[in-house]
């Protein structure tokens, strides 16, 4: 379904986002990507729909080769590849229904969306997507008036309205509290299984990844360092991905903006010593 063949991403400033990535993802799989911040998880996901243009190798989605140069082909591809973001990225000032209808953009003629006159079918699709995520009663509320979990559901509904074959999720639950995060991920998992959609999700939370994913890909410095079914992702394997022991302190510091190697030893010791109180 999605094939990475020796894919490289080099950013304009020379930073290597992906380094020779070879991954094959089958139809209907739910794949979690784990790794430290800056390891290339987001880059991997954004390369699939061309939000980040890849610079080497071949990236295929279904039968089409992703071509970042060809704008109209890219748009056609994006209409089949939905994306969910950490910050939900809903338009706050318009209604939930209109937010979901953004997902119908690719199949709506431009003039119709310019005057905001969507067809009855599009509206039906939007309502069904909202029903699937269970917030149809909020359809005419402003998106900004909803809670975090509800907003992320709106985002999922927007993606479902695209009738996607692939859903990309860039840390979808990182801004949510733990119970909500589980609910939203559970919804995503259920919908993905119902509709047979391929799903690639970036995650910081190991336990969530283990609970929901079929398969886990570990990344470090732009390379894939682990790729296997969830059962194989034992603590030792994950420690290898993170390159450090998998104690609670280290999971917490994975969110740290600077990598710990850059800091002097006593500073690291101080941070780690201060950490255990915050452990859940």
């Amino acid at each position, binding site marked *: 379904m999605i094939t990475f063949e020796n894919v490289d991403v080099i950013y304009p*400033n020379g930073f290597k986002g992906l380094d020779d990535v070879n991954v094959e993802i089958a139809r209907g799989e739910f794949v979690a990507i784990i790794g430290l911040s800056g390891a290339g998880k987001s*880059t991997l996901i954004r390369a699939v729909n061309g939000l980040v243009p890849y610079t080497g190798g071949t990236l295929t989605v279904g039968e089409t080769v992703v071509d970042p140069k060809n704008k109209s082909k890219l748009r056609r591809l994006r209409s089949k590849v939905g994306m969910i973001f950490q910050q939900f990225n809903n338009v706050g000032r318009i209604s939930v229904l209109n937010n979901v209808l953004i997902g119908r953009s690719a199949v709506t003629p431009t003039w119709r969306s310019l005057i905001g006159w969507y067809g009855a079918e599009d509206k039906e699709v939007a309502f069904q997507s909202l029903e699937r995520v269970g917030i149809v009663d909020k359809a005419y509320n402003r998106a900004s008036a909803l809670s975090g979990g509800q907003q992320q559901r709106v985002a999922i509904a927007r993606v479902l309205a695209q009738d996607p074959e692939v859903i990309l999720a860039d840390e979808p639950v990182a801004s949510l509290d733990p119970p909500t995060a589980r609910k939203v991920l559970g919804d995503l998992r259920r919908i993905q299984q119902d509709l047979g959609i391929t799903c690639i999700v970036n995650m910081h939370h190991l336990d969530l990844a283990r609970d929901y994913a079929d398969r886990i890909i570990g990344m470090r410095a732009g390379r894939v360092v682990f790729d296997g079914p969830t059962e194989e992702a034992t603590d030792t394997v994950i420690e290898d991905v993170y390159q450090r022991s998998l104690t609670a302190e280290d999971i917490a510091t994975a969110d740290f903006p600077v990598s710990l190697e850059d800091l002097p030893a006593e500073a690291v010791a101080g941070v780690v010593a201060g950490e255990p109180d915050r452990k859940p």
Partner: protein
Amino acid sequence: MSHGYKIAAGVVAPVLLAALGFLLTYAPAAETSEVFRRMMWGLVISAAVVAVAAAIYGLAYLGTSRQRAEAQAASDAGQSGYTPDRLDMRPVKPSKFWYNMALISIAVLFVSSAAGTGMTLSALLEMPARVWDYSVQMVGGVAQIPDEEARGDWANAFDAMLESVAIAWIGTIVGALFSLPCGILAARNMTPLAIYIPMRFILSVIRAVPEIVFAVAIFIPLLGVGPAQMGGAMAGAFALGISSIGTLSKLISEAIEGVDPGPLEASRASGATHAQMIRWAVLPQVMPDIIAIWLYRFEVNIRASAILGALGAGGIGRLISPPNGLFGQRPYDWEAIGITLFVIIAITILVDQISGFVRHRVIHGKIVRQKRRRKRKNGDASGPEGTKSAAIPV
């Protein structure tokens, strides 16, 4: 209100409005004023159009009543493909009646105002040819190698424009001198209510008075009219200065109200007097913003000085406006006009660029830019910041 009633209201209200407008065309006011009569006719016609459109929509709505009843019955019987449970009840679409009414009234207002101005739109048809003809002459005036006459035009334009800049600068300085104390007195977190309320009132009165009123009614009699030697420029500068005080003080007081309250508390806790607190806790925080506000007002004042010049208060406005200016002479000297416009555009843009640069520098400082440059040089600043800034495709 159900849908049918709204449509009925949408028909009846414009009909009443049109009738009212029609009656008013016979009012004595319309006898005397052409403008009023035209406006009323515009109102009649546009309201009638709205009424007809609403009526057509209403007829179509009546035509589908049987289908709607059937659909309603079907959905009540639960025959749609999807059986709703308690959570999945679709909400009713909220009414946009008032929103649509507001849009329609803006359209009606537009039509009747356009009728009221009595614009002869046929003049627009001849405009493109004239614009082309005159533009060619203007560009020719700017591009030619200046002869004796053109050199005089350039010199006049530069003198007048520099005079405008001088007027705007003095106006800004006057405004700046008064606006800082006024701004502090009009900031809620600096001043007791007894001073705050009258200060706010005075400032909003100053803001409400257009600067031409200050110029014509006060400063031209006091300081003189005409070219700079006669005092016109001074009158313009002071009119701009006084009317700057209103806006500047408002913006400054808003900036002061937005300061971080922490340092204020700290200085108050260490026993500072009010003046000391303002000097050491407030001003350091807001001074960059205030300087930026002043400079912005300088840009605005340059443009505003032109219209005062037309009233006799010096600067570029005096050079272009009739009866003695470039546009007052027949036939038009398009080459001179072209040169003058070129000078106006060039100097205004130049001043904008300089002041924009200074504003940016004052607010963001040199350090920020150096840091950013250093980061760019190092390529990857490790961590999420580096990736995020690079994630925007270039």
